[in-house]
């Protein structure tokens, strides 16, 4: 066979000067620039392109557009391999590789085709019926077997090497679809000066104008589309996005669109993205998404060579490809007669026009006669026959009931058109059945949207142009732009009559949903078994649930169900569509936010210093914090952390605490405000003092803890935990703006403005003396425990707080963040002679557990202040957020799990957080559960593991032995309940 043997000698919109080489299933072919993979395969007489989902039926190319259910291929190789791409939408590029799917070992000899013999097993609902018993077989035997036998393409399994982008755009009028109606709308609206965006899925604007021979304004439709495109491109207020699918409609005039930036190339250019996700906000939208042609349901209608009639015209007129040599047309509408005429004019032998209707317009019959095409009215196709290459003959049943065989290799079918109205339903608006259109048409619409052209049921070209012009004008005017009236582009009104008919009784499989292999027998079965609503029909048979969302199939399935149950189409209704209207890669929605760029990483000013100091980092919220600083020779983290703890407790250490939330609170009512948000008093806090505080949610549970320092009567600085900084800010703003707007208080987050370092250990004061010299007096008399002071240090404002989380003599020094790096280096230098070490969050955690301080593990959203041993802080003298509900019976129950310390009886035993607390000898049941372990650490000072736990009546049970039971990790440890303060209970070190 000659390559390119089905190509017409001339015509089409392809560029014959640019030959393109490509391969399918490993064989090389050639096509032209402007081809799709589908048109190039047909040009090369490749008719079998895939095997069907369940039955492995041979399938060919059925349509010429994005609604294609059959011709799904794996595109590209290696990491770029993409399954289930539609051959009809893949622009041909040099070196394109594609493979057929769902066949083994090859497309022609497919072992899975044996499923065909088992087809009684695969009828509707087979998942629910056939494999019910025994249950264990489902997971191990049936499901893997079905998954192997049925399915679509394979994902590459490798990381996607390409990049994706996200972009926001705003416009006055968004026009969705660049066919006749969309172009007319864009022209009318664009001339007004309104900001227009025009999105079209195809690489070339024009829609059906590129595939049909009708004229607009006296020139061929495709020429007119080129001409209008050029005019629109010249308008500075119009942005055209081709290769862009609008896939979703969202609230507030927001639309999601996917631009295939470089899908038409072998691979993206350097620095070019593969796809771009547009979020478009438009004041008005004109939907001109066209219509989808409906197949006819008859026996063997899925054979390669049975194609949609308008799709055949696309191949002939746009791609200059003859999809067959001997053709017949089977239809019930005028539009498909055009296919017969175009085929005949292109030199294809048309052996019959078979029309279900008894009468048609005389001019159609006259044209058929002129082209010598035999016409059979009131006739149907009842069966097809074929071989390896697909269709070979059809059985024609004439009006008189006699059947006759007709040898053809192409059957063009059409039962008419359905408006492509998916986008009108995304916000919950239902289409309505129109008898006049024999179709569901848009009814109520999303706010700001109008629908023009075939999408609104205007199937004729002239009417589509008129509607586009009218609605484009109206949309621009609605956004405040004046229109100089111009006539709509002109076209002849062609015949568009149709008589709806849906299916024929058949002894062989007649397919409704080609992608999911749903047949007329499946719909009949669903009707017999009572799954009669369209929603149940969909779920029971999987009709319309494939990646094409039933674009070609829903209407036929619904119509058949209506007929079988004696209801009208209006009564049975249609299922709704959800975004995305066309498949969208998750990668495109993620854009650059993947891998380590999934979210921004926040680094403290001292990060560079920490890296140089061999820190290992851990994520804390969006921050990276130093987890520990391993020294040479240290091979495991526990050695490092234990050494850091010992050094802090015996010498001095420094820890970057800049990530803690810092909120500046100012105003004459600042003290009153803090009294209302903390359980304890802050209005009584003297200037120059810091106090630990706890905040509750209004439901009485603890939200966060931290300190507040008072630097002036009307100035506090509040600290929060790292994880809750944003939440506390939101909570405080709520209190300030919503609950008590009358208070004179202002808040601002200064977390990122200040670098803060905790300096802890017996050598801390000597270090600060060395560091600060005469600048500030750090003696115990001048700066006692919980004192704070502001001062100027080396011409920079600085703050010093005497606070401690570790239980050691401790300070936190704060400097503006731009001096954070210099400050940590100065601290390390001044501390050298005192043996200073940097320590990380792990050592910090060990020391706070040794001191029984609660943290995120204990402040977990289920605990009250009393549960955490902080009940005495709850002021009796004032109201505060959470006070009333904290006194509910359920939150004051003495049986509530309350904070205790844990010591393993066997000093070698390891504790595990999450273990449940059981009485000795008690069975591990929910009834016997008395609490759980919240935090654990290895205490270097004690030489064994310690823990904190929440245990029923815990503080009253010190000295009692229990089990810490952790069956998941095989832990069952006998422990003693002890005070949660393991180190220095008198606080001598703290006050030193």
């Amino acid at each position, binding site marked *: 066979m000659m390559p390119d043997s089905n190509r017409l000698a001339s015509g089409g919109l392809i560029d014959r000067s640019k030959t393109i080489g490509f391969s399918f299933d490993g064989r090389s072919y050639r096509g032209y620039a402007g081809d799709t993979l589908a048109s190039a395969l047909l040009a090369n007489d490749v008719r079998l392109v895939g095997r069907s989902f369940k039955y492995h039926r041979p399938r060919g190319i059925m349509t010429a557009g994005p609604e294609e259910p059959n011709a799904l291929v794996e595109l590209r190789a290696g990491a770029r391999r993409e399954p289930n791409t539609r051959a009809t939408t893949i622009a041909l590029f040099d070196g394109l590789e594609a493979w057929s799917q769902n066949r083994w070992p090859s497309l022609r000899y497919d072992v899975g085709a044996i499923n065909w013999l088992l087809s009684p097993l695969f009828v509707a609902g087979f998942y629910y019926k056939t494999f019910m018993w025994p249950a264990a077989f489902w997971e191990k035997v049936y499901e893997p077997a079905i998954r192997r036998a049925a399915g679509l393409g394979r994902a590459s399994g490798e990381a996607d090497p390409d990049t994706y982008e996200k972009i926001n755009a705003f416009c006055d009028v968004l026009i969705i679809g660049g066919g006749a109606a969309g172009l007319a709308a864009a022209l009318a609206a664009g001339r007004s000066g309104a900001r227009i965006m025009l999105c079209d899925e195809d690489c070339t604007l024009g829609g059906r104008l590129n595939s049909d021979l009708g004229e607009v304004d006296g020139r061929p439709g495709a020429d007119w589309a080129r001409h209008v495109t050029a005019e629109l491109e010249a308008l500075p207020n119009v942005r055209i996005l081709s290769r862009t699918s609008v896939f979703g409609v969202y609230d507030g005039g927001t639309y999601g669109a996917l631009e295939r930036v470089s899908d038409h190339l072998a691979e993206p250019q350097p620095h070019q993205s593969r796809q771009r996700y547009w979020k478009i906000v438009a004041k008005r939208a004109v939907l001109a998404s066209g219509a989808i042609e409906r197949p006819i349901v008859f026996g063997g209608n899925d054979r390669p060579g049975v194609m949609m009639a308008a799709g055949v015209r696309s191949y002939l007129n746009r791609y200059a490809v003859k999809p067959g040599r001997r053709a017949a047309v089977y239809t019930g509408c005028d539009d498909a007669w055009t296919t017969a005429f175009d085929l005949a004019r292109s030199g294809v032998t048309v052996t019959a026009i078979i029309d279900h209707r008894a009468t048609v317009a005389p001019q159609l019959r006259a044209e058929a006669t002129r082209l010598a095409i035999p016409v059979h009215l009131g006739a149907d196709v009842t069966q097809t026959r074929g071989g390896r290459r697909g269709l070979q003959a059809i059985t024609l049943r004439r009006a008189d009931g006699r059947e006759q065989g007709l040898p053809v290799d192409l059957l063009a079918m059409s039962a008419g058109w359905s408006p492509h109205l998916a986008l009108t339903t995304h916000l919950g608006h239902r289409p309505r059945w129109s008898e006049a259109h024999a179709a569901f048409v848009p009814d109520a619409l999303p706010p700001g949207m109008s629908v023009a052209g075939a999408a609104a049921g205007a199937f004729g070209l002239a009417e589509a142009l008129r509607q586009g012009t009218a609605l484009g004008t109206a949309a621009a005017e609605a956004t405040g732009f004046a229109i100089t009236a111009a006539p709509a582009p002109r076209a002849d009104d062609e015949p568009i009559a149709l008589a709806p008919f849906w299916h024929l009784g058949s002894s062989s499989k007649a397919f409704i949903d080609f992608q999911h292999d749903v047949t007329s027998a499946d719909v009949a079965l669903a009707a017999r078994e009572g799954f009669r609503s369209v929603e149940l029909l969909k779920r029971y048979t999987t009709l319309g649930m494939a990646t094409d969302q039933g674009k070609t199939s829903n209407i036929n399935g619904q119509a058949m169900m209506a007929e079988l149950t004696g209801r009208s189409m209006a009564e049975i209704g249609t299922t709704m569509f959800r975004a995305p209207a066309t498949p969208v890669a998750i990668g495109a929605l993620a854009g650059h936010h993947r891998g380590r760029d999934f979210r921004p990483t926040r680094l403290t000013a001292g990060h560079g210093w920490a890296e140089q100091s061999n820190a290992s980092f851990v994520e804390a919220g969006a921050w990276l914090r130093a987890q520990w600083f391993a020294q040479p020779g240290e091979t495991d983290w526990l050695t490092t952390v234990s050494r850091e703890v010992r050094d802090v407790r015996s010498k001095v250490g420094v820890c970057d605490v800049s990530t803690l939330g810092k909120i500046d609170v100012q105003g004459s009512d600042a003290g009153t405000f803090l009294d209302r948000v903390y359980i304890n008093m802050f209005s009584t806090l003297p200037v120059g003092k810091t106090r630990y505080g706890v905040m509750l949610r209004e*439901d009485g549970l603890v939200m966060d803890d931290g300190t507040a320092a008072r630097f002036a009567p009307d100035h506090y600085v509040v600290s929060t935990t790292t994880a809750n900084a944003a939440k506390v800010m939101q909570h405080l703003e709520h209190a300030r*703006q919503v609950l008590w707007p009358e208070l004179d208080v202002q808040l601002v987050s200064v977390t990122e403005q200040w670098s803060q370092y905790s300096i802890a250990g017996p050598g801390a004061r000597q270090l600060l003396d060395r560091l600060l010299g005469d600048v500030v007096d750090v003696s115990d008399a001048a700066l006692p425990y919980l004192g704070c002071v502001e001062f100027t240090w080396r011409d920079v404002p600085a703050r010093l707080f005497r606070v401690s989380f570790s239980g050691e003599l401790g300070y936190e020094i704060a400097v503006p963040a731009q001096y954070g790096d210099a400050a940590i280096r100065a601290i390390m230098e001044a501390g050298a002679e005192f043996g200073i070490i940097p320590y990380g969050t792990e050592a910090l955690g060990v020391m706070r557990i040794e001191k029984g301080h609660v943290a995120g593990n204990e402040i977990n959203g289920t605990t009250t202040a009393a549960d955490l041993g902080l009940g005495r802080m709850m002021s009796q003298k004032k109201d505060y957020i959470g006070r009333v509900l904290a006194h509910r019976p359920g939150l004051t129950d003495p049986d509530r799990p309350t904070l205790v310390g844990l010591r393993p009886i066997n000093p070698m035993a390891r504790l595990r957080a999450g273990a449940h607390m059981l009485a000795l000898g008690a069975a591990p049941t929910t009834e016997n559960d008395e609490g759980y372990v919240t935090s654990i650490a290895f205490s270097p000072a004690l030489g064994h593991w310690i823990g904190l736990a929440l245990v029923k009546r815990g503080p009253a049970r010190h000295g009692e032995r229990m089990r810490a039971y952790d069956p998941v990790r095989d832990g069952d440890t006998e422990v003693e309940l002890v005070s949660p303060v393991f180190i220095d209970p008198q606080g001598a070190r703290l006050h030193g």
Partner: protein
Amino acid sequence: MRIPCPFCGERDVSEFAYHGDTAKRPDPATDDGQRRFFEAVYLRDNPAGPHRELWYHAQGCRSWLIVTRDVRTHEVLGAALATRGAA
């Protein structure tokens, strides 16, 4: 969804955090304070129609807004600063 922030202008919903309806904080001094707080925290009306609710412009000006929204259609009927519109 788009929310017309009185300070920043109309912005995408992803910049905002939702709080709930505009139930007032009860007077803690009343005798049945615990019942009133319980109802304010847990028992919320869910009307099918316009709903006055609090949104926080977390990724913007940090204003708390009272947004009136039809929860059936997500149509935003208005937005005011909570400090001003707290009536």
